[in-house]
């Protein structure tokens, strides 16, 4: 305890107990998630307006999207959220190996999501559909593009956390980074939960 | 100069009413606040360093008073502003329509009677007019201070405003929404004519200083047109390139068009540039100039050419 405390106090410049640091970091992350909601919010607002303005265009254009691929990606992301959550519980129970493996599975899912997306974008370009094709595709590329960016950031963060987990840096007493990383990853999932029906299903 | 410009439309007096009421209330509160502030600062200035002060932390009745009174006043002001706004935004049924187009950096007006003017808006005294407005390129804003009307105009959709001019005279029309390099040159004149004079204008007989214009020497008339018809927004007379080529030293100059053919800026070239500007574009410039066909008469084109000749 004293050991851990010293280490993270050094890390932090402040003399905080792991409990305090945990509370601080978690609140900070939730605030940041609020920011993310507003960041995507501008695009959701644009979506709402243009969909209301041009319902036919949206209906027509969304049929160009591959519903199956979208559904597969949704399943991948939801599964990755599950493994991430399990990873968090595992580290809270002190099971470093299980936690590391779960984070690894999460990362693999994230990469899988990226691969599917790569083929989707490729198919669109092959059909000469670009961001400037029409408003629907502008929104499609910007929303999924920004989401993809978040996936990549999440993967980078989780990659670091995974390495540290396997190195045994985290345990039942100190698991803050795993939980914070998890929160971020779940947000990526949350955003996709809305993007999928809006873009692929109802258009 | 009075504190507020002349009220020259039916709406102006009503807007002035709102402005006046708010001004009076503002002056009242401002005088009250600054008087109390200065009075306290002087009366309670520190005389000795060990002065004792009372421990006053607040007063609920006061808080309530100075929350409720401004709230009531503000809501009344909102209602007053709204009532006048509603009238400003509701054109009467008998208003005649004028289509306004703004583009960088000039105004064109298309009248219900088939006439078309550039940078000059003719309206009849005491007849309500409705402006149906659209921009060709970027945002502009139609603003006549003496009429207290303003409305942004946008590309891709129409906006409107209306007014009834009440006084004969000439007024400034400004572009009030920033629109680029020539923004401050995007000016027009609003000419309010008496019903009789308006009828004459409508029949196509020039009323604006007709005799005067005819007697001007061509170069001077050209200089006048250069300013009034908005040539100055894009063409400088000092050699600097704004949007189009400068008029300075233009006459007799040689150059190349975008398609590679060359030209000499003689009378015919200048006339063609004024009347059919999109036909041939000089290399390095954008095809943005509107045609002045039907806006400038042959004599006026001649006058502009004469004016350009004087700019060596």
């Amino acid at each position: 305890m004293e050991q851990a405390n010293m280490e993270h106090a050094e890390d932090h410049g402040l003399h905080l107990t792991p409990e305090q640091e945990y509370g601080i970091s978690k609140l900070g992350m939730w605030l940041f998630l609020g920011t993310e909601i507003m960041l995507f919010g501008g695009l959701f607002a644009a979506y709402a307006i243009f969909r209301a303005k041009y319902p036919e265009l949206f209906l027509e254009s969304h049929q160009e999207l591959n519903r199956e691929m979208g559904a597969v990606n949704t399943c991948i992301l939801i599964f990755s959220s599950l493994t991430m959550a399990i990873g968090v519980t595992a580290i809270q129970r002190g099971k470093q190996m299980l936690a590391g493996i779960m984070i690894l599975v999460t990362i693999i899912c994230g990469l899988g999501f990226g691969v599917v997306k790569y083929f989707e974008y490729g198919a669109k370009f092959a059909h000469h559909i670009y961001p400037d094709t029409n408003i629907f595709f502008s929104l499609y590329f910007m929303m999924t593009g920004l989401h993809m960016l978040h996936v990549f950031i999440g993967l980078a963060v989780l990659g670091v956390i995974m390495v540290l987990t396997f190195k045994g840096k985290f345990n039942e007493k100190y698991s803050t980074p795993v939980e914070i990383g998890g929160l971020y990853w779940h947000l990526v999932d949350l955003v996709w939960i809305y993007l999928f029906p809006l873009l692929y299903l109802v258009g | 100069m009075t504190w507020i410009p002349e009220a020259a439309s039916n709406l102006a007096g009503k807007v002035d009413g709102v402005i006046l009421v708010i001004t009076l209330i503002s002056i009242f509160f401002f005088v009250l606040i600054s008087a109390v502030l200065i009075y306290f600062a002087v009366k309670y200035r520190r005389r000795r360093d060990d002065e004792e002060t009372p421990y006053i932390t607040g007063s609920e009745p006061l808080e309530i008073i100075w929350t409720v009174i401004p709230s009531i006043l503000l809501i009344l002001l909102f209602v007053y502003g709204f009532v006048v706004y509603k009238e400003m935004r509701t054109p009467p049924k008998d208003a005649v329509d004028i289509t306004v187009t703004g583009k960088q950096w000039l105004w064109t007006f298309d009248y219900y009677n088939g006439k078309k003017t550039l940078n000059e808006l003719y309206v009849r005294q005491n007849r309500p007019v409705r402006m149906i407005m659209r921009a060709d390129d970027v945002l502009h804003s139609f603003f006549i201070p003496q009429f207290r009307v303003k409305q942004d105009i946008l590309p891709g959709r129409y906006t409107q405003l209306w007014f009834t001019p009440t006084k004969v005279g000439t007024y400034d029309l400004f572009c009030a929404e920033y629109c680029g390099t020539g923004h401050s040159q995007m000016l027009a004149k609003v000419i309010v004519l008496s019903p009789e004079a308006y009828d004459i204008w409508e029949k196509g007989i020039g009323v604006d200083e007709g005799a005067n214009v005819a007697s001007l020497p061509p170069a001077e008339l050209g200089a006048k047109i250069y300013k009034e018809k908005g040539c100055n927004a894009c063409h400088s007379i000092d050699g600097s390139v704004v949007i189009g080529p400068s008029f300075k030293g233009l006459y007799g100059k040689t150059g190349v068009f975008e398609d590679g053919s060359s030209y000499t800026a003689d009378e015919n070239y200048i006339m063609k540039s004024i009347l059919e500007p999109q036909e041939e574009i000089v290399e390095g410039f954008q095809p943005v100039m509107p045609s002045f066909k039907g806006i400038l008469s042959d004599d006026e084109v001649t006058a502009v050419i004469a004016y350009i000749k004087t700019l060596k």
Partner: protein
Amino acid sequence: MANHTIANNVYVPFLEQKGFLSWFLTTDHKRIGILYLISISLFFLIAGILALLMRFELMTPMSDFVSPHTYNVLFTLHGSLMVFFFIVPGLAASFGNFLIPLMIGAPDVAFPKLNLASYWIYLVGTIITLYALLSPADTGWTFYTPYSATTDTDVVMITFGVFVLGFSSILTGMNFIVTIHKMRAPGMTWHRLPLFIWASYATAVLQLLATPVVGITLLMLIAERSLGVGFFDPAKGGDPVLFQNFFWFYSHPAVYIMIIPAMGVISEIIPVFSRKPIFGYKAIAYSSLGIAFISFLVWAHHMFTSGISEVAATIFSFLTFLVAIPTAIKVFNWIATLYKGSIELHSAMLYALGFVFLFTIGGLTGVFLGALAADIHLHDTYFVVAHMHYVMIGGTVMGFFGALHFWYPKWFGKMFNESVAKLSWFLIFVGFNVTFFPQFFLGIQGMPRRYATYPEEFESLMALSTYGSWILGLGVLIMTVNLIKGLYSTEKAPQNPYGSLSLEWQVPSPPPTLNFEEIPTVTDWTYGYGKKKEVDA
């Protein structure tokens, strides 16, 4: 806080360590505050010089000093630098950083490293924007489409710079919210907090939740220019007014990001120099939160003539009037604090009183612009320019200067020349009013803003405004010299020269690196000045 022990009790002021890296790798909130202070002051001076150049050009109706295009670039840069580089980070990042941990009795902010990262992000945004100056934009700081989507100048770089800056703002806001929630010293309950903390909290919420919206809006604009998407392009089915809706959803709260910290500063200065408890503590505290909340509801009052619907204009006008109420409450409470006080007209107090005076004018003229019918005439004229500067200079900058003079001894442990400070205050106050008061009349007369040339009938008032700008510039110059000279003075500032009860004055000047030798336990609120009656205790 059981395990908080520092072995040595030797006092080492936070300014002690020297060297470039000790600054650019510091996680000390006070040092980061200084980094921000220097950066924003630099941008304030640069943007101020641009303003002087503009006023010089406007002395005559013709374009005789710079070309219209150059003039447009000047006002774009003046606006962008002032807004995004000076006044938005402004007080919140500099004094917020310096004061929040000290005032709440904490050794540092909640995330010291993130705090440093915020500053680096600010620097990166700065560098990107400076690069953008190679082909400076001429869009105005509002970047309205479609002009910003079509002009030949480099809009992408400058908006990207602003986008990056936004993250600095977001992270700072998040840091402060967590700090205020989690790092308060024992006994520092919400109702004992200094009002500057309440103000900083309200500001931080706005930074956190409004900034991302402008971020995505600017990204959409960048996509519009580089990918050819058409969210704001009517030819592609987009809507230029949508940009304004999104832009003001941030930029109206941003006005309060700028002004609320200044209000907090005034709430600190007035009680100290009146030796009176602040009048109506809770009213001022909650009105900060009230202003922050309502500020999200009023954005379209910048757009009454822009082609939004009448219904929306009416709703937003009504909500706009609501925001005046908490603002009025604050002004009345500040003045009531003076009542029966023992008022010392220190330079900081002069700035505070100047703030109340000028901000009252700024606030009252805001009522004109909130009222629909009056706004139609006054919108996009010099009236708006004057109103905005009364709020931003008369309000925020006065608060900023007041804070500089008030906390100067605490921050640097030195004193400036008080008489010179008073002189510069006088020049700034007079110069400011001569510059901007005539602009109210120009606006009512119908002089549109952003005009490089103007009709001759406005010349006399325009020239008067230009003369005023010289007085204002001189005042700022004298103040700057005075404050810089003070740094080299040998006179050491006492720990608590004004007899303040706030926590930051209970540590040495300048404060030691970890602020408090031992985390204090707070037993009373910050404003216990004056003689208590038995009943109150």
